[in-house]
């Protein structure tokens, strides 16, 4: 009789799930930010009907397309990081942390100088705190040495 191999599924820590959920929220927000400029310029109704450059400068339509493209790239990057994160890859922790740091900096500048996006801010705060959990850092192989920082 062939013995059936027992499968041991590693239980995913709750913090990883929380971070994954926050990344998905951010992805949805970014997706919304992809669509909104295009809706405002009625691209879905009229298509790209007007010129993108006039006298060597960008038209509002062109700006909307660039903005959407940037947010689309960000959304795709978010998905790649999410996949790496769920597969517990060290690089995904580093990219996500750097990404969260940049995003938080922009959020804080927006808060003081423009219109703040609290949903993005909250998601980033959750991600930052969750990523800094000792267990999470151990899982991703971040907290394995005590090298000094440059702070």
């Amino acid at each position, binding site marked *: 009789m062939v013995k059936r191999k027992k499968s041991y599924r590693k239980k995913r820590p709750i913090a990883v799930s929380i971070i994954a959920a926050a990344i998905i929220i951010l992805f949805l927000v970014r997706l919304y930010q992809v669509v909104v400029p295009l809706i405002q310029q009625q691209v879905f109704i009229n298509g790209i009907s007007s010129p993108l450059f006039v006298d060597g400068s960008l038209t509002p339509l062109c700006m909307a397309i660039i903005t959407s493209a940037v947010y689309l790239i960000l959304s795709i990057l978010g998905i790649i990081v999410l996949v790496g994160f769920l597969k517990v890859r060290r690089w995904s922790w580093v990219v996500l942390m750097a990404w969260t740091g940049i995003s938080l900096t922009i959020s804080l500048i927006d808060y003081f100088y423009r219109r703040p996006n609290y949903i993005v801010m909250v998601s980033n705060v959750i991600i930052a705190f969750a990523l800094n959990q000792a267990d999470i850092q151990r899982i991703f192989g971040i907290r394995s040495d*005590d090298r000094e920082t440059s702070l």
Partner: protein
Amino acid sequence: MKPASDHLTTPVTATNLQLLRQFEPVVCYTKGEQFYPMGVDHYIRDCSLWAHYPDGRDELLIKQGEVTPEKLVETRPAVFGTVRYLRFIEPLNLSEAAQVLANQTLLRHRLRNYFHAGTGRLARGGFLPRMADGLFSLSFLLRGKVSAATAAAAELDYHEMLKEEKKYVYYGRVTRQNNWTVLQYWYFFCFNSWRSGFHGVNDHESDWEMISIYLYEQDGQLVPEWIACASHDIKGDDLRRRWDDRTQLDLEDTHPVIYAGAGSHASYFRPGEYQAEVNLPLPDWLSGFLKAWNRFWTETLGQPAGNPLRIPFVDFTRGDGLAIGNGKSHAWSPVLIDESTPWVSRYRGLWGLFARDPISGENAPAGPMYNRDGSPRSSWYDPLGFAGLDKVPPPPIALQLLEKSCEKINRRQEEMDRLIPEKAGELQMLGIRLKGMEGNPHLAKQYNALTRVLNSLADEVKGLRRECLENSALLQGLTQQIDRIKAGGKDDPCAHIRHLVMPVKPGRVLRFENVAETWAAISLSLLLFIIAALIFFTPKYAWPGLAIILITFIVVESILREAFTQTIGRITLILAMIAALIILFHFWKWIIVGTLVAMGFSLMFQRLRELTG
């Protein structure tokens, strides 16, 4: 019990001078060192004596060339707060300063006495310590300091003195306390050039350093057991090493080998480069805030501890320069001192310039017996406590004390063996009497009184039983210790050390070393230029611009230090805390409501699960 074979002994009948000579340390200095231990007589003759009064006045008491050890100790009444000090280098005008600086360069060139720092100290610390270092350097604008010209003049004068009389002096003192014989070697230097010569913390005229050796008596012989060296702010147990600890102490025959820090003259047991860290002198409220922040950072957020406002200074203790002592090209000239030596006990002033530095780093030290404020120096009156040896008996006495302690505990155990059954029986008797009273309301008063007696007796029995058990464990430990000593075994020689100071590991310190060095040298200035540009060109965005630039600088630094991952984590965490405070400020009501609702659901879920089994 016999002294360990590597403990070379000396008879108890040896004179103090013989004792000092037998164990005098070999001191190795770093190449580039400019000052070596010298006699005080010549130095005193070259000094003037001054008094600084609380109203800010300075008065010349004795002119340069007229000071003698006898005149130095003459009684001179003065108001409270007066600081008496010697002055080795007289004030220099601009042309004199330029002249001595040029002569110093020529002298070093002639002697080929150069110092190469290697990886600079600024590159060894992070960006924030470097900012703290910038503040420290700026603090010299407000604090009194010893000028570079003074250091140069001191170097030239010392060189002249050395030409007249090439003698390396130590002042030896022998004292006996608590069955220990203590040999103290005091070294006097006419100048401490740590800051000007070796990128260190301070410069000051004159310097006193000390090494102590602790011996015990056994079978008519004195056996060395411990050695302690004065080294910056290290105190107590951490200062001393055991004589037989070959990992921490080098011996040449009966002479310990000590390595002196370049310019600072602080003593170390191992050669190398020590990263001495200096805390910025901060006001109490700021220190309190930083302490609370550190607690929150480490305990609540689980981050590694660190103090960014600690400035890293390197104490270069390479031992590749001049070596003085037994078997070396230069020998020691010992001079005995004690409390009867007038300049030791009766001169309480400073041995060099009083630079009016409120944090004292640049003020000259007082003599071997006193602190700068004239109070007695603990290393003089309490040489055992100074190295944490006041609680340590010499090995032969240790055995006696252990046996005495065992006897005492055994006697107490015997007493308890008798007391515990007696008291336990008494307790049972009271218990049964109490039981007999139950159900008789008229005995309520007696019942309550007896209950109190019973409770107190129960506590006593419990305490005796605990003491008996603890004593057994203690006795077991003491017996093991006695057996070990009788068998000639010893404890771990480093067991007493809480913080072992070790030189930094040699080899590559930083990635892209040259780039890192250049970056360390220019980054702070570059930051200041960018801030100036931000304020000038985009004043509206100066603050966010500053934050972004600061973060960028720290990240660049982290890449050079191979600490990008940790640094990015910490920066993000700090930003997240700021964002969390903003969210809390705007949405506190929603957060409270949300928390209450979540708690409600959680409780309901638990209860319902209980209900449904």
